[in-house]
């Protein structure tokens, strides 16, 4: 029982271990999540984007074919000469990305008109990685693809597409560049990550956003197995060379409708040096993508990636080590929470910790472009906290049961409840403290035992003890032990009682009164008639669970205990002296001496209880004579001090 155990380690060892196991399990899950759990986890963190209030660079423009354009020019797809006229008005732009595909021939002259315009523009055409087998690509188409492909790649890990749908040849050959238009969704069909490039046969075809940067900035994307570098910028990528995109509020984009572009007073300089993505946002055409911030037109996903590149806000996942650090922090805080004894406080703080984790995620996102999948630490917190509560509940019940069984026979049931509730106040470890010890014994009982039948003696004594113990319990005392026909009770231990001396005196008086009632049915000469003396002493003693292995008791040891026993045995002689003195005509304040109290008890009660001094009392085993006081229990009853 000795030693420092400030985390309650021995008691809570099991739960610490369990929490550590949870930590490892959830951490492993976070490193290798199955696709469904991964997308669920991402969905929990999607709310981060609400905290992004930045505007994308005004260099980026979305030229959209939306509602009013469709109203003005009819249903999409439009005649290609109209598209050609529109694209021609983009000549001032620095780069143009087409988020659309011209994969079927229309009338030859209109296709030609479009092709003619395309050759004059810094424009990137789209390739869809679906449809026909890539193996069937024509020689010309493959050459065209190779000219648009990345040239600095060293075994990158990319999504490998076996399918490719290219623009028709006349348009394809007129387009200076091609790019992929694909974004792979997560398991919940939401678009969170942007693949930088795809394998297409031996070519590494960049996505539209990457290609626009290559053309606009004339910088290449270098890919290796684990890194992606665009110009001087190192891009954070995952195992499939995808990067997390950082969405802006949908209304933050600079949009120009096709209808506006076609106005006669269109000023082409509005697009000078701009990077323009041309695409369809009209709902009927369904180029809408599910994103963490809701339905978004596909072209805006490409633009978001570009905007992230321009303001350097692509999101990086936490490294494994950083994630571990998060988990350990939660673990340590949880350990601290478990040190609290109040369940509602633990609950409240755990809740607060959960909220704290979420906002740590938000802060990492908003200030450091770091993406913490907050789901995993929260899962750990939930699992550990719930298990912890169950554990603590079960452990407390076990402790309660122990306390009840250990104390209910010694302490009043109401006190046991108090003991259980104030478990922390109860110190069973052993300590030195002030307490009051009450000692009672039957006078001249040994002859009685010889006169009564054994069984009757036992039941008679049990009735007597029952009455005495009730009195002790009534006044917050703890029955320490029964020694033969003697009773030893403690006050102020193990449960604190500020007025222990007074309560011990009340108990003694109560016991005398109870004995008087008990004796009512018997004459003074009847062997059933019992006489009792009580000694009470207050002082310092060592209290604690004393004993060995499976057999130990809460008790007190010390001079205070011995003195109270000596005082009890002195009552008989003092009473005899007192009776003799009364016979000799001396005036004594009470007719009888049944209770003797020691000096410290007297000092605590002298103003409240009737006590008369007995000077220089010689006690057995005591070198120097002591002062003791007679407690007049009959007067206490007259004064109605007992309830």
């Amino acid at each position, binding site marked *: 029982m000795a030693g420092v155990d400030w985390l309650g380690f021995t008691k809570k060892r099991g739960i610490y271990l369990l929490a550590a196991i949870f930590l490892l399990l959830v951490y492993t899950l976070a490193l290798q999540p199955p696709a469904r759990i991964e997308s669920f986890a991402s969905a929990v963190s999607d709310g981060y984007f609400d905290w992004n209030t930045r505007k994308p660079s005004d260099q980026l423009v979305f030229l959209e074919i939306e509602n009013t354009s469709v109203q003005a020019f009819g249903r999409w797809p439009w005649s290609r000469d109209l598209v050609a006229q529109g694209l021609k008005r983009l000549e001032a732009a*620095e780069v143009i990305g087409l988020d659309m595909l011209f994969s079927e021939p229309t009338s030859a002259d209109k296709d030609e008109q479009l092709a003619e315009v395309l050759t004059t523009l*810094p424009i990137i055409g789209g390739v869809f990685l679906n449809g026909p087998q890539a193996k069937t690509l024509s020689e010309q188409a493959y050459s065209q693809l*190779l000219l648009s492909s990345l*040239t*600095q790649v060293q075994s990158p890990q990319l999504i490998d597409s076996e399918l490719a749908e290219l623009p028709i040849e006349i348009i394809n050959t007129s387009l200076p560049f091609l790019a992929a238009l694909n974004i792979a969704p997560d398991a919940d069909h939401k678009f969170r990550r942007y693949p930088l490039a795809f394998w297409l046969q031996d*070519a590494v075809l960049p996505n539209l956003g990457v290609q626009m940067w290559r053309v606009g900035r*004339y910088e290449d994307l270098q890919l290796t197995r684990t890194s992606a570098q665009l110009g001087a910028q190192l891009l954070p990528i995952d195992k499939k060379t995808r990067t997390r995109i950082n969405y802006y509020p949908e209304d933050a984009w600079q949009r120009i409708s096709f209808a506006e572009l076609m106005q006669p007073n269109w000023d082409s300089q509005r697009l000078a040096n701009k990077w323009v993505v041309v695409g369809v946002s009209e709902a009927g055409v369904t180029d809408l993508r599910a994103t963490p911030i809701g339905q978004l037109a596909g072209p805006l996903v490409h633009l978001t990636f570009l905007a992230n590149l321009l303001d350097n806000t692509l999101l990086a996942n936490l490294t494994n080590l950083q994630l571990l650090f998060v988990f350990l922090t939660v673990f340590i805080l949880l350990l601290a929470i478990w040190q609290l004894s109040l369940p509602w406080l633990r609950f409240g703080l755990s809740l607060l910790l959960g909220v704290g984790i979420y906002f740590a995620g938000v802060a990492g996102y908003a200030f450091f472009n770091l993406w913490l999948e907050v789901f995993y630490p929260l899962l750990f917190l939930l699992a550990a906290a719930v298990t912890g509560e169950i554990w603590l509940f079960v452990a407390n019940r076990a402790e309660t049961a122990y306390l009840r069984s250990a104390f209910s026979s010694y302490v009043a049931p109401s006190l046991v409840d108090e003991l259980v509730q104030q478990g922390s106040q109860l110190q069973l470890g052993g300590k030195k403290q002030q307490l009051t010890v009450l000692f009672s014994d039957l006078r001249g009982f040994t002859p009685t035992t010889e006169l009564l039948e054994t069984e009757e003696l036992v039941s008679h004594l049990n009735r007597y003890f029952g009455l005495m113990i009730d009195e002790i319990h009534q006044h917050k005392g703890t029955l320490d032990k029964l020694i033969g026909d003697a009773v030893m009770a403690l006050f102020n231990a193990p449960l604190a009682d500020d007025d222990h001396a007074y309560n011990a005196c009340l108990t003694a008086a109560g016991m005398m009164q109870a004995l008087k009632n008990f004796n009512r049915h018997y004459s003074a000469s009847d062997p059933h008639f019992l006489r009792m003396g009580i000694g009470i002493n207050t002082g310092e003693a060592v209290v604690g669970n004393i004993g060995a292995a499976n057999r130990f008791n809460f008790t007190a040891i010390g001079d205070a205990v011995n003195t109270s026993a000596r005082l009890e045995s002195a009552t008989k002689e003092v009473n005899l002296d007192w009776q003799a003195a009364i016979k000799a005509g001396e005036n004594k304040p009470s007719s009888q001496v049944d209770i003797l109290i020691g000096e410290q008890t007297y000092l605590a009660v002298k103003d409240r209880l009737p006590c008369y001094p007995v000077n220089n009392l010689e006690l057995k085993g005591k070198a120097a004579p002591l002062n003791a006081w007679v407690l007049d229990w009959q007067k206490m009853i007259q004064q109605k001090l007992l309830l």
Partner: protein
Amino acid sequence: MLFVSLLLMLVYTSFAFAVECESYASLIRTEGKVQLVALGSPFPKRNLDLPYALCSGDRVQTVAEAQALISHSGGELVLAENSSLEMLDVDSLSLTEGTALFRVTKREGQRFVAKTPLVVIGVKGTEFLVSSQSSRNDVALFKGEVEVERQDGQEMAYYESKPVSAMSFSEYQAFQQQSFNEYKNNLEQAFSDYKEQQLAEFKAYVSGVDLQAGRQLTLSGENEKPEAIDAPINKSVEKLQQQLNSWLE
């Protein structure tokens, strides 16, 4: 504006020798899809006219079923399919990926250097084949002398394959078996598998190996512990050499 300059560049560079750099090498012949990427450009050149003068930093890349013949100050080389070669300077080139057969003519006092991301090969006049894969690097020497070191200068554990005369009978049996298997193995076999199949004996820790003609040095990949096995030239390598060699004649 950038785009205009880009277009201008495309137009200019399509005239093969109208480049403003000191050229030590030129692209002589191609087959299949061979791409040329000039220093600093993210895009390959269009309308490549041969022969094409190569400058420092220029890269030549081949896809599947493509091949390129390059003459350089040290001699000639044939770039095999799925390979990428970068011009460094007058005395050196770098095979960043894939396989190439080099023929270097002897020059007085001058050393020619061929590099891969992993190794540096010092040449004194020779014919050799280099293959650079992520899991292993091979240098097979047909004539002359080369010295092979790692780029990072690390010492490597040097193993030498036993000559047949030094083998016990059971070893010889295993070797026979292994020789047969060689036909099935190609250069993409991982180093660790290859090592297992060679009855190689640890010799020493060395920082460089002087390779003998008729031998092939195989080096472990970048993220493994530095090891190198010196063995007779692999049959599949020999076959590849014959195929590429036809362009050198």
